[in-house]
């Protein structure tokens, strides 16, 4: 990257907590958020469980207006507000100190629950008074909700690259800064559980009726989740002028596409290897310098095998320098938010030296077993950490975070 990029703020709403510190504390303690899914009827599905987030209060929104805000926005707004607050970019009334703030966000379904409501109504031959549901399901409405709630405007981009989107949005924001297109960008991803998506994964038999067991020979599928995470990225000069100490650097971003199959990675994970190399090349480091990887690790039969082989190739079969875990066993697969939430977990591992344990292991995949984070090796002094995501359509992305040294 040409101009350095630093992280100065972060915030998250996950099934483990309404703030990033809450989520991190629970994650490190080995908790998971799997629960019975009551947001919509799942009686016709194989699977009835998910990782459901508790919606934080929105004190700046009038109660009457609250019903008009999508669940996706109710996850996104508090996460973005927390990120801006930690970057010291909020005034006393909770509004952005930067009236123009570029936004790079990701989602796969936007406010789809409103879209479902609209579809149900027109299928039932209801014709009018449906403007609310149809307008609020569009992803740009969540962007408008963010801009309105936090008091800023400016260019925005919504990336919908399936489950890698959250990493793409952060990488895109970093590219905006490193190229000089922007000095400061609010970036992240959000996703709310919706019936259409839940049933979609269920009918593909991608969800599990067992525990979610990433990188385990007994894995049988993923646990869906929801949440949002946001980061404030800046140039060091911009942060310096504001007198804000960076939390770390975003030093590398790689992205690419695996065209093998619409819903399955190529068996050796070749595209992922290329993307990880691209990210470490951008960071100007060797793979061995990455101390922790927050893996994609969906726990589906088709994902974790190729992903494991990709790590072995990336590290020339020597995984002794790296610790790996997939936090999807704890918070579920949050789809368009996954890359952003998991990037924050990698960042927290870098800055705290604590590593999220790999939950629900029974019989680890032998090729990766030695690298998986357990209670015994759950701390490390890291210089660099990586977050990796793969998605439908073959989207692959990797982000490298590095310690900030002034």
């Amino acid at each position, binding site marked *: *990257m040409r101009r350095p990029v630093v992280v100065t703020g972060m915030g998250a709403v996950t099934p483990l907590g309404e703030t990033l510190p809450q989520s991190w504390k629970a994650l490190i303690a080995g908790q998971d958020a799997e629960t019975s899914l009551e947001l919509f009827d*799942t*009686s*016709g*599905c194989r699977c009835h469980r998910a990782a459901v987030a508790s919606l934080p209060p929105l004190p700046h929104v009038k109660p009457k207006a609250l019903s008009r805000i999508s669940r996706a926005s109710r996850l996104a707004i508090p996460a973005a507000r927390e990120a801006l607050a930690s970057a010291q970019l909020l005034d006393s009334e909770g509004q952005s100190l930067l009236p*123009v703030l*570029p936004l790079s966000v990701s*989602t*796969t379904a936007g406010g789809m629950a409103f879209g479902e409501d*609209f*579809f*149900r*109504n*027109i*299928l039932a*031959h*209801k*014709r*009018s008074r*449906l*403007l609310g549901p*149809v*307008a609020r399901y*569009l*992803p*740009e409405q969540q*962007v*408008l909700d963010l801009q309105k709630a936090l008091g800023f*405007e*400016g*260019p*925005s*981009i*919504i*990336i*919908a*690259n*399936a489950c890698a989107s959250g990493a793409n949005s952060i990488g*895109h924001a970093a*590219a*905006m800064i490193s*190229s000089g*297109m922007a000095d400061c960008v609010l970036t992240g991803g959000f996703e709310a559980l919706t*019936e*259409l998506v839940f*049933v*979609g*994964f269920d*009918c*593909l038999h991608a969800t599990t009726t067992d525990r979610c067991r990433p990188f385990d020979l007994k894995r049988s599928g993923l646990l869906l989740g929801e949440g949002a995470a946001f980061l404030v990225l800046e140039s060091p000069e911009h942060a310096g002028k504001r007198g804000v100490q960076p939390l770390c650097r975003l030093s590398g971003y790689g992205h*690419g*596409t695996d*065209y093998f199959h*619409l*819903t399955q990675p190529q068996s050796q994970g070749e595209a992922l290897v290329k993307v990880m190399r691209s990210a470490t090349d951008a960071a100007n480091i060797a793979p061995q310098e990455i101390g922790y990887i927050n893996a994609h690790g969906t726990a589906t039969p088709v994902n974790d095998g190729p992903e494991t082989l990709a790590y072995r190739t990336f590290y020339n079969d020597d995984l002794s320098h790296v610790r790996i875990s997939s936090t999807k066993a704890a918070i579920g697969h949050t789809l368009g938010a996954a890359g952003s939430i998991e990037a924050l977990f990698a960042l927290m591992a870098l800055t705290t030296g604590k590593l999220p344990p790999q939950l629900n292991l029974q019989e680890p995949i032998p090729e990766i077993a030695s690298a998986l984070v357990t209670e015994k090796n759950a701390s490390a002094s890291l210089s660099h950490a990586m977050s990796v995501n793969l*998605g*439908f*359509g*073959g*989207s692959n992305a990797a982000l490298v975070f590095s310690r900030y040294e002034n």
Partner: protein
Amino acid sequence: MKTDLAVIGQGVVCPAGIGMAALLHAQPSETISPFVSRPDRHWPTFRVNLNDPSLQRWQKQPRLRRASPIGYFLVEAAEQALMGSSAAHRAQTGLIVAFSTGCLGYSRRFFESIVAEGQKSASPMLFPETVFNSPVSHVASVLNLEGSAYALVGDEAAWIGALKTAWLWLEQEQVEQVLVLGAEEFESASLDAYYNAGWLKHHDDKSVFIPSEGAAGVLVRRTQPGDANIISQMEDGFIYRSKTEARSAAQRCFQQFDSSMPCAENSQRHWLGDVERKLLQARYRKLDKHAYLGEATTASAAWNTLRALALLDQSETRLLIPISGKTHQIAALQVEKIY
């Protein structure tokens, strides 16, 4: 934002036909489509002829067997824009597609089956094709594009976001060239959506808002000697939440450009078109030879851009192209002839 994106290829699928000649010279035929909520009621629409041999040839591709119409629109427009690109160039080509609603047809079919027949009947064949980036993946796979690929979502202004992203990838030397496309497919549920938004009404006593579909795109690279037409400035992010705010946003957006610059007439029949006309009419260079192709969000933005580029080839040296998003933001770009 000043840029130097050379346009070196272009591709079109529209209701008037396939290719640039259709975009510039042909007339689309109206089709009557029913509302989902009231199948006995209809509204005029413009549809792409899926039986056109240019589109049918893609339906034989194994990867595209289950693809939605938007996938066929995209792959055909992409192939036209890539004409002349060698395999080596294709390996260094990035792909960015802007959508508003994406694979809406499959999304409706998938959800309708859940509502009508229950969750147990949900089709694992349909669901993956409802994902925004599925057609993007298909295009890249079928055309052997090995660079990065993004699916972007938004209103018409997402087309500007896609072009800005292309500039970013080229500036960072991630790829040699980028294929930027806008694409939409018509689905009857859209009629109900537009009806509820109050958009389905006669525009000025003689014309009407006609939902449409199709795709278009440009192949761009950093300007090199010999390149003829470039995208030299792009501005977006002028958001609005009301008609009053939209007028102010449009004013602020257009003020970013040279006020003496001629403007490509917006052919959209929408209240935002009226806002644009009031602000820019004195600077219009009429594209009146061209037929109205209906409202296809990001595809419309791409069609308007290609028509303006064609005008550069005929008479103008530079043009402002307003890209007014119907649901979020006002944007615009400037194209220039540089030789």
